[in-house]
């Protein structure tokens, strides 16, 4: 694929050790760092969060008008080539806020689901569940107490528990959005596609950017 050419070329003059360190970092990013960052952004109400770790820098930005955070770089890599493209794109976006913006908006379109109230009553979230926890579609997230009858709130998708839109003990109506679930994998296709198209036009920038990052 011509789009991944520059990245492949760049990777070729990095050592095997460096490459495996990159992969480990990406894995850690996916399983540990990102979920907790999403939770953090959700809990603080901040608009943007940036974290640097080793050679990596991750920036999360809340979409304009949105209430919940979205990661600009959370697509799970499908193979080595796209991982590289992803990495290059991430570095590129870190330098170009306009692209970050656009990508964040895309992420919010298909990277989020909302758990809604199954009944009219009082909301009780599960105590053992907190922002950042992984959940699967159909998992119980809590209950709405309708006249003493608990009605289960279930996760609409596989993902990570994000922003809570109501407090425990709040009165809620039927269908009311209660909890944001950041969908893992939901935004993969579009982010990868975005990475591929930007990759070809900013080949030089990416290779430099990654090294600098």
């Amino acid at each position, binding site marked *: 694929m011509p789009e991944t050419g520059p990245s492949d070329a760049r990777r070729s003059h990095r050592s095997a050790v460096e490459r495996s360190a990159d992969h480990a970092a990406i894995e850690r990013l996916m399983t540990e760092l990102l979920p907790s960052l999403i939770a953090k952004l959700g809990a603080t109400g901040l608009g943007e969060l940036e974290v640097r770790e080793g050679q990596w820098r991750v920036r999360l930005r809340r979409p304009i008008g949105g209430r919940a955070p979205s990661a600009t770089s959370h697509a799970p890599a499908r193979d080595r080539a796209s991982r590289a493209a992803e990495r290059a794109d991430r570095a590129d976006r870190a330098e170009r806020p306009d692209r970050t913006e656009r990508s964040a908006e895309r992420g919010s379109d298909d990277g989020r689901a909302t758990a809604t109230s199954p*009944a*009219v*009553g*009082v909301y009780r979230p599960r105590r053992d569940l907190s922002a950042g926890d992984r959940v699967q579609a159909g998992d119980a997230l809590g209950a709405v107490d*309708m*006249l*003493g*009858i608990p009605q289960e709130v279930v996760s609409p998708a596989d993902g990570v528990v994000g922003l809570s839109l109501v407090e425990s003990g709040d*009165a809620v*109506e*039927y*269908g*009311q959005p209660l909890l944001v679930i950041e969908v893992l994998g939901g935004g993969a296709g579009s982010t990868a596609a975005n990475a591929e198209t930007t990759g070809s036009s900013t080949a030089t920038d990416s290779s430099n950017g990654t090294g600098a990052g």
Partner: protein
Amino acid sequence: MFRKVLIANRGEIALRILRACRALGVESVVAYSEADRESLPVQLADEAICIGPADARRSYLSAPAVISAALITGCDAVHPGYGFLSEDEGFAEVVAAHDITFIGPPATVLERFASKAGTRQLMAAHGLPTIPGSEGMLRDDLHALSEADRIGYPVLVKPSAGGGGKGMRMARTPRELEGFLKVCRSEAKAAFGDDALYLEKWLDENRHVEVQVAVDRFGHGVHLGERDCSVQRRHQKIIEEGPTPALDAVARANLAETAVRAVVAAGYENVGTLEFLVDRDGNVFFIEINCRIQVEHPVTEMLTGIDLVATQIRIAAGEPLGFSQSDVTLRGHAIEFRINAEDPEHDFRPSAGVVERYHAPGGPGVRMDSHLFEGYEVPPFYDSLLGKLIVWGPDRASAIARGRVALDELVVDGLITNTAIHQALLQSETFIDGSFTTNLLDRVGSAAFTAAAARAS
């Protein structure tokens, strides 16, 4: 008076209750299903709360959902409207257990009148003539057949719970009766969760006349005249009017006074309606009592000038009635037309869709109770009532004349309505001379009336 009332109903009656609350200076909350999010009562409400999905069993018919909504919105009373939970004594009891007032008769009173057969016995004991019928509920098919033999055919099979004609069948022979029992049981079970049935003697040419009463907590009761609901299609009322053309002034006054005396003696409370059948010879038989505000209540409001919904709310709040029988004056004549989203040309099949144009008629003595507006999408989940057109005139002829003008003026585009059948009925000699009977429309067929009207014009 209440602080805040939860309106647990939809459509025109939710709007009617909202208006009554406002007139009384009481705050209200409209409880709605997901399908009614864009409805007029929700748009006009001070406060609204979604209580469940479109399926009424999980919203308007769900006692936990309604009571939960009342609790979390801080309501101290629930108005159930008509239909749904309006005559459910179990619901009224649970409402009371949460220190919320059920706007209607207290649960104990509802319970006393819950069984139609039991109510007939009770009212007979208090001096009302009742229609010959089975002794209590039908135990089984054999019991039904022997009771029908005793009463004499034709007989009407009726479910003990509910109303609106569901689960009701007229049987002319034992063979027909056997066939209907199973159908009626399953219809009654599906509609009311209770498959108990009883029998009544079927009066072939009869009229439906009902007396409106209001009784306060202190046993002070008045009647507000009667309504004639003889124009029916498959036991569903479509035109109601008052006074009834079936009885003269003396007979009407006798009936209303007898009814209110009996119902007060039987311990009834709040507004209610006693339904009677009137046979060809003017004999009157009590059939049942409706412990709620009825669809056709505006007929009485037009005749008396009394706000029945506000009266109902005040009585439930423990206020004395505040007026006596001598303060009630019945003036002129009123007719109500139920405007339904039904297609008269296709067996009154319900129609749903978007209201493209809407114009409510006006002028002196014309009232339109409706939740329609342009752009409103009528959901397919509930009954087909779009609104009620009520006309008043100093006498029956002038009320009919105003009714014709108003029906011609009414515009509901985008849906098929039953307006044409009302227009046809106002041309029919049987209606004009006041001799309509409850089974006439089904016997002759509405198409015959529309065809006759088309020929005449």
